[in-house]
């Protein structure tokens, strides 16, 4: 997919940081120095038409990254440039204009659709907000065609969300996101609430739509096999930091970060022969709290190859270990945890 990455990136994220005060309230930020370091100094680019996967465990900041890019929350610092304009500096009008080209698909197909609106109203709402298709009849036809494209029966346009199953609701959410033909869609765990057979349907739909419209995806998920399947490039996050980022093949074949390697090895493979023969890395303990992240590399508390240097000073720099392959580890090497191999 390297040839895709020519030219200017569609989305450029630079040193993005997002902190939340631990306690809410007017004076909380002044009185209470405690902060949740949700996203720390994250940088990446997304090129037109590609899928950029963001994986990590719960609380690693992957969803906050997505929400901050769309400015559903304001970044604490850093730059988000979408289509040549800095999102963080946009006023309300510019923001609305920007969101025409950047849409969101949410995890929970039950909570993200208004139960009092028909699916036709839900899908046509973005068109109305942006006044794209003022003619009601034309809009109706367009919405029907959208429903057809995402695999729903256009006859069901006047039904309410509760009349649909989880997979069908997620299709409604996808139709809504595609209504404006955006350049980028942020998919926040779009399939994790669905059963495997339905999950495969939705993943195929997302790939088909991308082929057709050339939309770029920021695909946020915790399931590594799903991310591998859909992404061109993948980034791994841990405790707000980006640990590794590369094209999907290199990342899964030859992870250079011990965390990536451990994460890959923890995924149970649906193949008993492989499962019996491979050596797994079982990480000890839980991820540390993002309120008081450890000094040095945030992963050093659980890392099987941590040395003294990892526990002090700054977070290791995200450096290019190979062209297009970035890794934030002092000991970055192919499969750094020896004696354990990541079997595919």
């Amino acid at each position, binding site marked *: 997919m390297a040839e895709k990455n020519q030219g200017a990136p569609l989305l450029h994220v630079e040193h993005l940081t997002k902190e939340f005060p631990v306690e809410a309230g007017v004076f909380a930020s002044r009185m209470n120095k405690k902060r949740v370091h949700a996203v720390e100094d994250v940088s990446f680019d997304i090129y037109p038409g590609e899928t950029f996967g963001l994986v990590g465990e719960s609380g690693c900041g992957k969803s906050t990254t997505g929400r901050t890019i769309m400015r559903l929350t304001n970044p604490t610092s850093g730059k988000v440039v979408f289509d040549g304009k800095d999102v963080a500096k946009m006023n309300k009008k510019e923001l609305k204009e920007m969101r025409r080209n950047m849409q969101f698909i949410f995890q929970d197909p039950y909570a993200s659709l208004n139960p009092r609106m028909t699916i036709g109203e839900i899908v046509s709402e973005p068109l109305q907000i942006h006044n794209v298709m003022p003619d009601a009849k034309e809009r109706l036809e367009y919405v029907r065609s959208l429903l057809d494209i995402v695999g729903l029966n256009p006859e069901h346009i006047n039904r309410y969300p509760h009349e649909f199953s989880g997979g069908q609701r997620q299709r409604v959410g996808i139709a809504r996101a595609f209504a404006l033909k955006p350049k980028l869609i942020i998919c926040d765990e779009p399939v994790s609430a669905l059963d495997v057979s339905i999950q495969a349907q939705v993943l195929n739909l997302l790939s088909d739509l991308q082929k057709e419209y050339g939309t770029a995806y920021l695909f946020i998920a915790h399931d590594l096999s799903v991310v591998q399947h859909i992404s061109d490039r993948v980034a791994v996050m841990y405790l707000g930091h980006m640990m590794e980022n590369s094209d999907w093949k290199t990342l899964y074949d030859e992870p250079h970060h011990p965390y990536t390697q451990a994460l890959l090895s923890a995924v149970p493979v*649906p193949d008993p022969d492989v499962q019996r023969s491979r050596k797994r890395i079982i990480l000890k303990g839980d991820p540390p709290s993002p309120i008081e992240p450890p000094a040095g590399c945030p992963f050093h508390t659980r890392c099987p190859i941590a040395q003294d240097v990892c526990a002090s000073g700054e977070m290791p720099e995200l450096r290019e270990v190979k062209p297009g392959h970035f890794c934030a580890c002092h000991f970055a090497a192919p499969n750094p945890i020896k004696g354990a191999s990541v079997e595919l």
Partner: protein
Amino acid sequence: MARKKNDNWVELKDQPVPEGSHLLEVDDLKMYFHTQDGVVKAVDGVSYTLDRGETLGVVGESGSGKSVTSLTIMGLIDMPPGKIEGGDVRYRGKSLLEMSEHEMEHIRGNDIAMIFQDPMTSLNPVYTIGRQLGEGLRLHRGYTKEQATERSIELLRMVGIPNAEQRVKDYPHEFSGGMRQRVMIAMALACDPDILIADEPTTALDVTIQAQIIELMKEMQEKNGNAIIMITHDLGVVADVADKIMVMYAGSPVEFGTADEIFYGASHPYTWGLIRSIPKQVKDEKKPLTPIKGNPPSLVNAPKGCPFSPRCPYAQDICRNKKPEPHFVGEGHYTKCHFASDPDFIKKNAPSTSRTQNAEGGEQ
């Protein structure tokens, strides 16, 4: 009927399993719910056997009846609306369905214990971990408070919770998700049960924590020799732990066999569909997934014939009109499909596995 802990009640657990029967035998169990919308056939003819030291994996999509089956075994379904419409569950030769509530109370936790998906909602937030851990011991074993606390600390240590003496006094909210699930396992194993039913024990957890919990369950099984029923939707998890696998669809098993038989010799189109739906970890080229089309059927108006026929790509008229009977592909390996007796059909349509690829000299 009332049995106190000091009368001559003999622990079922200490009795040998009667000749010719298994530790747990579920025999054509049917649990229907009578609702306003009609009869929901949540469990419709489930049969299996389980012995000590074995792990049974129960896989299926949401609504396939995998949880209701185990809740029925535990006697935890409210009746009404639930009603057992047939079949039997025998534990060490004794029918659990015929037991009084009082006898069942003795079975639950003592002989058959259960861990649930969400460790936060299954722990009581207002009691300390120690009190909840000790509850079963005080109830079933007549431990004093001090003995129970002492044993609780031991149990917490066993499941790898550091600083157990202090932690035993903590409340559930002071534990992380993975730690809570460890507490749940400690609680389930407190009375050394014969059977541990784990209902999606790792679904709410991150992969690195999931790996820890699965490893812990395996370790505990090796030590105690208990049987495990692992209910999950994740084929990766069953491949990791299960000796036998039951694939459920719309309330009944569609295929049952050993882990190897299910993963390398599956003969039901639904099992194939599940295997094909999972994104493969590939090294070179990515291929589109092959999903199962459509949605699972409603359990109220279940299809007349094979429940999978509306979604099955190979369905014929016979499938839509007649319920298939179990067909034994091998000893103990059965499939409920009209075409399972046709080896050509299976050969032609079964997904390729790592073993078939090896046999053909393909990659990997």
